[in-house]
């Protein structure tokens, strides 16, 4: 039995007990698909069986990340002996049936369904953000739709919800496939979106039809990634960014996160799995950005700050016997942070006070960088290229103004930047390569792997192991690949015994006298991606289970981590996310510096700017933040 899902049974996968031995007697069923005999696994759906046999069955409400709904009906097929057509996505094969995937009845039904969907779908393709990347459009093309048989909506019915910094909802384009509902309820366990009303009044809405900004949306944007049409999109700031670029008085700075470069090739029609770091830098400069920085630099800085914070918490707990909030939670994922603020506000003390790399960079650009270059911070426009929808919300959090200005002006998604690059007439894959700009020109592989689930933890461990034990991490984990925290398993757990300790490095000497108090201890860590998995850990902590004994837990709001973020190219599924992860780990492997504490620019910034060290006063002012106990009830 699969683990229990929260979605209604009507939208849950089929539970068919499969025979344990795949090749055992009775585990295979011979079926006829379009008069061809094929062997399929018992309990497989018709859709899966067709896919394996290279037979295309169109789908719309089906998504590989989500449970089965069977409500669009586009995948209907004929099963001999059954009065009605059956949906291929939901029908489990448990008997030797005969299937027809393209009979006259099937084709007519599919065409009718497409025509019906188009009759409710407002707008024209050329004025849509999803033009050429829309599943409804593809279906219409596949079935040769050349007129609106059942009419077309002339006037918008719903007001476009622009309230959220992250997600824009235009329900006029919604086809009621409910992928967003299943994403929000089942995949993310947030539950902001739900079907409301019945019959002709059925639509997707929020609690009391409030605007998205006024409900407990965590801005993860996973719904955008799974919307087949343009009904959901990110709040696009590119017009304002173009204006800034075109304004000669503005100094436009962009920082780029690790995940977009591992996925942006997809926007240009390439297969996932290749990074375009150097090409992207050149493209950004050609578009007109004045300087291009690597967010990995502040990812390294995050490791130092967050790692120091963890050491301080452990020191207080173990040596000074003070009450501190443990385990410490990572705070890089703004979706996760807001999730915790809404759903587990009593645990906000466990969140690391270190800002996310984006916001650290924002604060440094308008202070350190502005001073160094002699630019008035008010003339700097700071853009962050992120794989993320929630980063748009994060940079607009009212407390994120520690530089005296808005630390980061705009969060830009991979998709939106891809659009800007195309608009500038640039074909990214053929750009020459170029490097990031100084004074933050160097970043480590540790910062890079922040993009994948487990990456923050791996980066932290690479540094903690070396700084505490004095040993090379390569001696503990081959090639410094900390494999126990890698991979797409929903929740990962590992124990790292500290058998020996070394000298305290200079950077931390003012904070702890020695490491002896850690000798013989076992560091317990966990990693979760997707808030549904985060919920499991949080509930376990609440119940005093094994995760409550952890010291450090990495949480990412999005499945797969940032590389599966809500701002990444569409479509997404686990295969695509794996390829993006591979691109990231391959690049990490190729870098000369792979540990945050070995980044010489990081050392430098502590020498010249953050002079009282990690978690010191300056660092606290610029690089740390506080959180809000939001709860679930919003007035």
């Amino acid at each position: 039995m699969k683990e229990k899902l929260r979605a209604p049974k009507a939208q849950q996968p089929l539970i068919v007990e499969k025979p344990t031995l795949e090749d055992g007697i009775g585990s295979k069923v011979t079926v006829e698909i379009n008069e061809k005999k094929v062997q399929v696994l018992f309990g497989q759906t018709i859709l899966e069986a067709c896919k394996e046999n290279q037979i295309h069955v169109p789908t719309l409400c089906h998504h590989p990340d989500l449970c089965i709904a069977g409500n669009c009906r586009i995948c209907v097929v004929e099963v001999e002996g059954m009065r009605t057509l059956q949906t291929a996505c939901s029908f489990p094969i448990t008997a030797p049936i005969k299937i027809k995937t393209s009979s006259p009845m099937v084709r007519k039904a599919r065409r009718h369904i497409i025509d019906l969907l188009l009759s409710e779908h407002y707008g024209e393709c050329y004025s849509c953000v999803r033009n050429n990347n829309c599943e409804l459009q593809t279906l219409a093309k596949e079935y040769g739709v050349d007129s609106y048989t059942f009419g077309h909506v002339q006037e918008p019915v719903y007001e476009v919800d622009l309230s959220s910094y992250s997600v824009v909802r235009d329900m006029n384009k919604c086809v009621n496939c409910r992928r967003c509902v299943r994403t929000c309820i089942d995949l993310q366990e947030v539950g902001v979106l739900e079907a409301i009303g019945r019959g002709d009044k059925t639509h997707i809405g929020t609690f009391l039809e409030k605007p998205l900004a006024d409900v407990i949306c965590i801005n993860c944007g996973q719904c955008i990634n799974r919307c087949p049409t343009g009904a959901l999109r990110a709040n696009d700031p590119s017009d304002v960014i173009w204006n800034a670029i075109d304004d000669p008085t503005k100094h436009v700075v962009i920082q780029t996160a690790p995940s977009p470069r591992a996925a942006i090739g997809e926007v240009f029609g390439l297969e996932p799995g290749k990074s375009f770091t150097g090409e992207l830098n050149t493209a950004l400069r050609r578009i007109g950005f004045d300087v291009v920085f690597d967010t990995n630099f502040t990812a390294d800085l995050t490791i130092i700050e967050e790692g120091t914070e963890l050491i301080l918490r452990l020191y207080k707990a173990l040596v000074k016997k003070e009450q501190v909030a443990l385990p410490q939670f990572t705070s890089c994922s703004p979706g996760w942070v807001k999730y915790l603020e809404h759903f587990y506000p009593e645990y906000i003390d466990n969140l690391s006070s270190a800002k996310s790399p984006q916001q650290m960079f924002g604060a440094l650009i308008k202070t350190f960088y502005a001073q160094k270059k002699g630019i008035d911070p008010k003339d700097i426009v700071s853009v962050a290229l992120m794989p993320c929808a929630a980063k748009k919300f994060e940079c607009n959090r009212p407390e994120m103004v520690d530089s005296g200005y808005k630390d980061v002006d705009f969060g830009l998604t991979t998709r939106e930047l891809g659009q800007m690059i195309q608009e500038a007439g640039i074909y990214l894959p053929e750009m020459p390569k170029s490097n990031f700009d100084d004074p933050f020109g160097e970043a480590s592989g540790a910062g890079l792997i922040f993009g994948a689930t487990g990456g923050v933890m791996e980066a932290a461990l690479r540094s903690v192991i070396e700084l505490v034990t004095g040993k090379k991490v390569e001696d503990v984990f081959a090639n410094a690949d900390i494999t126990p925290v890698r991979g797409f398993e929903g929740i990962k757990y590992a124990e790292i015994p500290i058998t020996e300790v070394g000298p305290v490095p200079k950077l931390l000497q003012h904070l702890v006298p020695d490491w002896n108090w850690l000798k013989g201890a076992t560091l317990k860590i966990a990693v979760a991606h997707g808030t549904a998995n985060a919920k499991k850990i949080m509930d376990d902590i609440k119940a005093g289970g094994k995760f409550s004994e952890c010291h450090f837990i990495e949480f990412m709001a999005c499945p797969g981590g940032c590389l599966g973020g809500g701002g990444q190219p569409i479509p997404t599924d686990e295969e695509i996310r794996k390829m993006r992860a591979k691109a990231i780990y391959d690049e990490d492997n190729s870098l000369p510096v792979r540990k945050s504490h070995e980044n010489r620019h990081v050392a430098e910034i502590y020498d010249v700017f953050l002079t009282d060290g990690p978690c010191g006063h300056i660092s606290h002012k610029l690089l740390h933040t506080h959180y809000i106990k939001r709860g679930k009830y919003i007035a």
Partner: protein
Amino acid sequence: MKTQLENNIIKTERTGPVLFSPYKRGDAIKKAVKQKREDILFEIKDSGLKGRGGAGFPTSTKWMLTAAAKADKKFIVCNADEGEPGTFKDRVLLMEYPQLVFEGMVVGGYTIGAQTGIVYLRAEYEYMFEQLENYLANMREDNLLGENILGTDFSFDISIRLGSGAYVCGEETALIESLEGHRGEPRNRPPFPVNTGYMGYPTSVNNVETLAAVPHIITKGGSWFKKFGTDKSTGSKLFSVSGDCERPGVYELPWGTSINELLEIVGAKNTKAVQVGGASGICVPRSQFDRKLGYEDIPTGGSVIIFNESRNMLHVLKNFMEFFVEESCGQCTPCRIGNIKLLEGVEMIERGEFTFKYINTLKELGRTMQVASKCGLGQSSPNSFISILENFKDEIFHTTGTNGFNGKAGK
């Protein structure tokens, strides 16, 4: 409407061949718990009893599948979400013959191996709730319900749950969703409730009237039951008769009764059309009044609505389509949008602004809805559209002036 209510509220002596025949409280349970489960199944199978909600699935098969499913818990659910327009027979059974319904559930529970029975009572029947609860309490007192019924090792109890108003919750999987506290929407089938039903456990969902027939079959035998009705439609049926007739109300008649005979019994005159099976049923014109009510000819859940000469069939159709536009659960495309398109088609005809080509396209769409919708609601909602436009095309397309139809139809 007023006469309809009076006819049902005033309890006259009810007579009928099966359900309204004499029955002594408790007899079926007393007999059943001494029998083997297989023997009961055999008896039900022998009787030929089929589901009375309208679909006509053999009750013995449903029970056999539920009995055969492996699980530590099983449920029997009484579908008392009587929502089909023009149906009010379950109300009579629950108010006047609760012993039949509840004892049918106990026997069913015993047969399939369930420990719990749930009555899903439509929200509008809330007024019965207390009376039914009291009846259950009496049964518990007499050990016809509860732990170790009549000293056997069979324990079974019944609880009553109120629905929340949606028509679609009469569909068995939507009913189960609703019972579980979710939005009432049909599930994908397979898997069927007999395998994966309420809370994932094997569940048999039976109509009130089906369950009410069971005690009679247990006490009097399958072969006695079979004496009534026809070969494929055994026993009797309750008909909720409303509309243009002198004596609307609930009638128990053997299956195989023709529409003509029924009209005679209820005192209908100048009848133009009879809608059999409620909004999702079919509309029978006068020329076909010799057709018989039964699974072989016109299957029905029991709703009979009579229209006389004064009625406008286009208005009748519009009324039905408006009903479906509102009552579709909104989940699947053919039903959610298809019904809107059919209603728009009716309105086009009403205004005289239509082409026959488009009306034919809509009939084709109706056929798609019949095969591609997720549940019985969408699969049957085009029935009246197709049958009324087909059977009354002369009236609808070729008369002028009357009936709100201006006669300026496109050709």
